[in-house]
């Protein structure tokens, strides 16, 4: 067992004449927080979509734990322990917070039709466990008091938390977060940063992060890859990347 969890090599994604992602390669190690940053339209989200199976990459290889997952449909990818959040939060808005977490456990619980119709003991046990786990995660995220509310009515920051909880409850090995801090206020951003730290430490999950908020990125990432126009321009430690003149010119601007 190597310590590389996700390995992306020579990933290319073309939309018509547009090369949105061009020969991108990177590795995410176990327990690592790996960030991708870069100007708008650099191709970050597209990388996510390719890795997650939402787009079929034009070429390239994606390996999860040594197994190729290139071109698998997204639900199969998710079953491999690779789940994501979305740039615009995608909750089941009319379902309750609790139900959002129950749906996420769908692949892990007793779903037999007859079991449920007859309320067999194994079914009940499985439902109880699912509820238990959901409750635990709500506690962890500090949103238990909203458990029975419709998810769409939650404040934005809480929705973000719920979305992360919904991913975590599937026991992923790699968590992919697409701009999790967008729309949060500074206070909430700081809480988010602590949360990511905590997740990694307590749940052995690697994190692949896209974010434009530099304080967050610099605060939580182990390594950072900078993309521009579909190509990685540098990969390195936060401190290195921050001072890289190319990054400053293309992305950060002079402060």
């Amino acid at each position, binding site marked *: 067992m190597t310590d590389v969890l996700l390995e992306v090599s020579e990933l290319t994604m073309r939309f018509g004449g547009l090369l949105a992602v061009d020969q991108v390669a990177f590795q995410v190690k176990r327990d690592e927080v790996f960030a991708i940053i870069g100007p708008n339209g650099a191709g970050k989200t597209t990388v996510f979509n390719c890795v997650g199976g939402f787009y079929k990459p034009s070429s390239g290889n994606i390996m999860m734990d040594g197994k190729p997952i290139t071109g698998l449909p997204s639900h199969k990818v998710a079953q491999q322990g690779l789940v994501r959040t979305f740039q615009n939060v995608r909750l089941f808005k009319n379902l309750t917070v*609790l139900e959002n977490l129950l749906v996420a456990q769908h692949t892990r619980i007793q779903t037999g039709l007859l079991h449920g119709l007859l309320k067999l003991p194994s079914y009940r046990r499985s439902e109880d466990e699912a509820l238990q786990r959901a409750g635990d995660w709500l506690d962890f995220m500090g949103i238990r*008091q909203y458990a029975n509310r419709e998810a769409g009515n939650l404040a934005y920051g809480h929705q973000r938390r719920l979305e992360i909880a919904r991913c975590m409850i599937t026991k992923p090995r790699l968590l992919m977060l697409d701009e999790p801090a967008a729309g949060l206020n500074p206070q909430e951003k700081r809480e988010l940063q602590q949360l990511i730290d905590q997740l990694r430490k307590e749940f052995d999950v690697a994190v692949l992060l896209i974010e434009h908020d530099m304080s967050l990125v610099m605060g939580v990432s182990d390594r950072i890859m900078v993309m521009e126009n579909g190509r990685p321009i540098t990969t390195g430690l936060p401190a290195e990347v921050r001072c890289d003149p190319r990054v400053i010119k293309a992305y950060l601007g002079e402060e």
Partner: protein
Amino acid sequence: MGNNIKNALIAAFMAGVIIAPVFGLQIARVGMQTHLEPDWNIILVGMAIVFVFQLVLRPFFARLFAKKAVKRALPVLSDSARRGLIFLLVSIAIIFPFFTGRAQVDIATLVLIYIMLGLGLNIVVGFAGLLDLGFVGFYAVGAYTYALLFHWAGWGFWQALPLAGAMAALFGFVLGFPVLRLRGDYLAIVTLGFGEIIRLLLINLYGLTGGPDGISGIPKPTVFGFPMARRAPEGQTTFHDLVGWEFATQDVIVFLYLMALALALLALFVSNRVIRMPIGRAWEALREDEIACRSLGLNPTRVKLSAFTMGAMFAGLGGAFFAARQGLVNPESFTFMESALILAIVVLGGMGSQVGVILAAIVLTVVPEIAREFAEYRMLIFGLVMVLMMMWRPQGLLPVKRPHVELKV
């Protein structure tokens, strides 16, 4: 006010334009020639009514509704109220046939069949959010399964019933498999196409299905193997002979009704449980956001297919029952209009609301029956009722709180 008068005048003028070519100027034919028989009164009266309505009544209603709008939030049925209501409805349903005439019981049986269909389609449209305009196809499959098994192999109702459900489910599965990746209205039209194809096949496979004439003489369910009929087929004893009753058609009708009630209750129970089960949650989640579902590892095709198949199965059971009630099946009973009616039941009920479906099935079956009194105005009234109902209760007759598990907080 001046503005109001102007608007009312315009509306009255338009009413004139609308009425004139249909009612005002009747086409009459003499031999091979047509000419017109104008009736100006009807046009003028129509215009006057619209004028008055626009000028006086509408502002009045507007004010009325404006006040109401403050409390526009619909009364949502709570869990216990819902249970109470269902209990009440069921009790009424059980004693009902013993206090009314056969015509009423007969209609009530039809209502129960529509309840079954409504509950089935409710799963597909209300929960899984798949707009299915060809639902009637599965209904037809169920009905014909029984009819054909009877016709070609002499099967009885109780033997054929499970097979009718299974057959419809199979059709749902097989047809659903390729098309469920279509979105929204494209799915709607493809399902409509499937419904039509099934109907057309039934018409054209003359040798097998009897074509447009269908199959008649289908027996009603037996009571423990004894037919309920005036004359038994050779070699069988009728139920009334067995117990020594005088044959009364009322009994047959009531028996049929009670069977339908049992089946509808079963459907209610199953759909009620299923939506609280993981699969039910998955349907709803999929309706809300397919991409998010996929990102959590749910296989959308499989989830959709389960809804589609289960809905089809309900339709199949309803179909077998329909065949038994009518004693006859023919493709005419399975036109698109029928799908539309079932869909209307679901929507009018308040998507996803089971009590709503029951009420809507009653309303939409009974209204056209009552409207028979108005002879040729029957369908006119029915159409109008559909439009008005939608305006009156766009959220459905009885929206219920979504059933959901709760967590202590």
